[in-house]
């Protein structure tokens, strides 16, 4: 039983890898619609496998399977979509599906934080950067008008092979091992996830929280320092202007001298 499951997981990973390979934009021509559908259905195959695996083990596995199918399909689209903006939007879908999964297992606070931080903050930053730095002309959504590096993936085959290897290894390990029942599933009674999580963060993880705060601060300063435009500071600016003025005067003087010298030589 378990061995066959291992092989099933290998097959599922291979199917998904092939779907991604088919869906990736390749040289010159974009991914066909059929390939896209295939990639999505590959995700669905994974879900069929999951259904098969989970039958009768956990209640509410239909919701779980739908959500995971959604997140997998959206993740495939994130990777394969030729336009960065759309792939960012698909990433929003991934985030939403993931947070729904987290709610389902009773991690409400983390789910809310995920939606706020990812879909709210990080994605807005991404979209800003994409819009700042995108120059591919938007002509009727035709793929041929897009930039070259959006149209063709780099080494798609070997990347898919590597992804397949990783995924097959992980899936085989996870399937092979017997996990047993989850220990004392919380969620009964007056258990409140956020309260408990806050207690945990402030007691066991207090140092880490402070470290995370410092890290965020450093990253803020660092990213501003990196992305800042090289504007000269005020003192430098005055200095350069004076230098420029002096230089202009000097060049005028030179020109005059040249003209003078040449005219004299002409005599």
């Amino acid at each position, binding site marked *: 039983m378990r061995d066959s499951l291992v092989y099933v997981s290998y097959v599922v990973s291979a199917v998904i890898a092939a779907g991604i390979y088919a869906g990736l934009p390749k040289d010159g021509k974009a991914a066909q619609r059929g390939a896209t559908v295939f990639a999505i259905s590959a995700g669905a195959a994974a879900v069929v496998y999951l259904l098969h*695996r989970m039958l009768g083990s956990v209640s509410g596995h239909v919701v779980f399977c739908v959500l995971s199918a959604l997140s997998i399909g959206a993740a495939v689209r*994130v*990777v394969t979509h030729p336009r960065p903006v759309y792939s960012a939007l698909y990433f929003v879908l991934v985030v939403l599906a993931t947070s729904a999964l987290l709610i389902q297992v009773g991690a409400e606070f983390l789910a809310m934080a995920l939606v706020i931080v990812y879909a709210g903050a*990080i994605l807005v930053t991404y979209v800003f950067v994409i819009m700042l730095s995108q120059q591919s002309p938007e002509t009727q959504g035709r793929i041929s008008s897009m930039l070259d590096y959006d149209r063709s993936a780099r080494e798609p085959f070997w990347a898919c092979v590597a992804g397949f290897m990783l*995924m097959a290894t992980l899936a085989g390990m996870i399937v092979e091992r017997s996990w047993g*029942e989850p220990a004392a599933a919380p969620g009964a009674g007056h258990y409140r996830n956020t309260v408990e999580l806050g207690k*945990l963060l402030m007691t066991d993880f207090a140092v880490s929280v402070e470290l995370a705060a410092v890290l965020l601060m450093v990253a*803020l300063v660092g990213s501003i320092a990196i992305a800042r435009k090289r504007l000269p500071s005020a003192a430098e600016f005055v200095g350069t202007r004076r230098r420029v003025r002096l230089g202009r005067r000097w060049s005028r003087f030179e020109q005059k001298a040249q003209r003078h010298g040449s005219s004299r030589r002409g005599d």
Partner: protein
Amino acid sequence: MFAIGVVGFLTRRNMIVMFLCTEVMFQGVLVNLVAMGLLHGNLQGQGMGIFVLVIAAVEAGLGLAIVVMLYRRRGTLDAESWRTMRG
């Protein structure tokens, strides 16, 4: 509860084209952490998940700053244009 882990890594199986994929990987790791925390019946997984979130935010900020800088230098977002960095 085991299959949540399956999804956790099913989601993060990509490292190819763009920077956004790292975020997808973070999602997979996050789901996996929460699932394992649930498996062991404690909240450590979720606590770690919050730190994963923090790291993801930091990484997104810094990485995007670097991307903007590289774009200003080269005028393109193509990773291949930095091929000269190859040793």
